[in-house]
């Protein structure tokens, strides 16, 4: 029977069905891939060619002026470094808070388990909102400090539940009981036995939180006024989103339009290069990210 299965002829209907799916998926593939590809080829093309719409399938007038322009801008370099700091420190704090919490809540015998879970579940449905949270951040003295982007979001309930599910499935109560008989408490068990067995979940947490820190701009928009502390995303907002309007206005005031036009095209080109540079850390990690994020979704979905 099993060998024959392969020989079952596909019906006409199935052949049509397969071809339709193939075509639709290919269209989806192109629609998603082309904008990304376009950014890459534009970033290394001649500014005039990009603005004139000559860059479509491959780079025209290959050059790296856009990238040079990016590196001339102090704001970008500084905020890039800031973002690295926020991401590294942020992730360390996230791990230090999330993993122990998740481990403790994965132990069924823990006497505060139910209460603590309820304490966290409530926060998934209600919150104080933007302004009261802002006021608390202000009152605790974090406003306009780097900590404002690290401390308030130290624990994401969703991530914590993913980690907790992982501990429940992989670090069994029996394992702990065996260690307990040998005189090992929860503290030592967690650091010497549970953590070394939890490389997978640590990687997932690092990437979940890391991508979150790298890409977030909202908390910085609310809490940081000092430009030297801006994360990259906030500077990107200034350049990519707010600049456009300013440049349009300048164009009308200008006496020498040609020179300005050239400058303008270079500024536009620089945006493509900037998008690439700002995405490099995530792109480099993308193979790991894809693998671990998918794993995280699987673990998370077990609980629903």
């Amino acid at each position, binding site marked *: 029977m099993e060998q024959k299965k392969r020989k079952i002829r596909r019906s006409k209907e199935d052949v049509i069905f397969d071809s339709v799916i193939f075509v639709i998926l290919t269209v989806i593939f192109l629609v998603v891939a082309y904008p990304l590809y376009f950014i890459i080829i534009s970033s290394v093309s001649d500014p005039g060619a990009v603005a004139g719409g000559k860059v479509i399938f491959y780079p025209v007038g290959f050059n790296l002026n856009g990238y040079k322009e990016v590196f001339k801008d102090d704001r970008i370099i500084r905020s890039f470094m800031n973002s690295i700091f926020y991401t590294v420190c942020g992730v360390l704090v996230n791990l230090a808070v999330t993993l*122990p919490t998740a481990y403790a809540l994965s132990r069924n015998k823990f*006497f505060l388990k139910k209460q603590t879970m309820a304490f966290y579940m409530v926060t998934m449905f209600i919150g104080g*909102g933007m302004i009261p949270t802002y*006021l608390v951040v202000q009152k605790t003295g974090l406003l306009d400090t780097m900590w404002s982007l690290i401390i308030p979001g130290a*624990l994401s309930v969703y991530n914590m539940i993913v980690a907790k599910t992982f501990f429940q499935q992989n670090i069994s109560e029996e394992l702990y009981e065996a260690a307990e008989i040998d005189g090992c408490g929860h503290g030592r068990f967690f650091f010497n036995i549970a953590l070394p067995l939890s490389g997978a979940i640590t990687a997932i947490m690092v990437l979940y939180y890391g991508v979150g820190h790298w890409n977030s701009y909202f908390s910085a928009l609310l809490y940081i006024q000092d430009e030297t502390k801006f994360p990259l*995303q906030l500077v990107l907002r200034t350049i990519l989103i707010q600049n456009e309007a300013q440049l349009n206005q300048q164009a009308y005031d200008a006496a020498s339009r040609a020179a300005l036009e050239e400058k303008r095209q270079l500024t536009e080109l620089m945006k493509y290069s900037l*998008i690439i540079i700002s995405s490099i850390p995530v792109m480099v990690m993308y193979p790991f990210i894809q693998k671990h994020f998918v794993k995280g979704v699987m673990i998370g979905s077990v609980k629903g």
Partner: protein
Amino acid sequence: MKKENKVQTQNKKSFLQILRRDFSLVLFILPGVIITFIYTYIPMYGVQIAFRKYNPRLGFTGSEWVGLKHFIRFFESPYFLLTIKNTFILSLYSMVVGFPIPIILALMLNSFRHKKYRKVIQTVTYAPNFISTVVMCGMLILFLSPSVGIVNNVIKSLGGDAINFMAEEKLWRHIYVWSGVWQGMGWSSVIYFAALAGISPELHEAAICDGASKLQLIRYIDLPSIMPTATILLIMNCGSILSVGFEKVFLLQNDLNKGVSQVISTYVYQVGLLDRNLSYSSAIGLFNSVVNAILLILVNKAADKMSGNSLW
């Protein structure tokens, strides 16, 4: 203390014993609990400034009580209907488009037998999810720019007139929703794809032996098996129908499209942090949360009655 312990029966441990046993676990949860308490629970308590005339010197509880004044002011302002309408239309539109597309994508990928090509499509469609909101909106503005954007270059080369997309109120919602689909469809399909991968192959084989076509496999096996997941996600979506994401709307907003892009959350930001009208802004935020909570409960009840799937 030792005496007390001896008095206890062997089965029931005293509270102190339990506390000593779980002491390190208590230490483990402490940092998270403290931070969450300060930055999530105290703001919940601070919501009461929505009913007060907030004065920074007097704090959450000391400020003068004004009752529903801020709420009434919001209900009577022209922004009330405008922001609610915009929020509602935007999130309903996002949901109607954004909810079925990942399911369809997952079903197509699952019935697509060419493994390598499938892997390529998955890798590419997941990628936009990891682009930051700022870069995403920056890309949109670049592509749609009336002077140098590729979209307008194409339109111009076809003989049309350049369109200033970001200034057109009619187009703004479509841009917002479909760029969201572009960014999110691949990633949102992961959870359905995982559910589909869990279907036992024997089910499919048996159906094929009975002469089922591929379309029938999807209709009678695949679709029913992802329904529970889909329902849960739909309920959660409905619960947040009045809380469209602030980040992207805010970035795509400009003075020319505010008529359709001013949603509740951006209005809360504008009134609260730009105009420094803290109490009024909190009142709007609170109103929004309450409506969301009511919607979530209603939809959850409806889903429970109709399909037996619910959040709790």
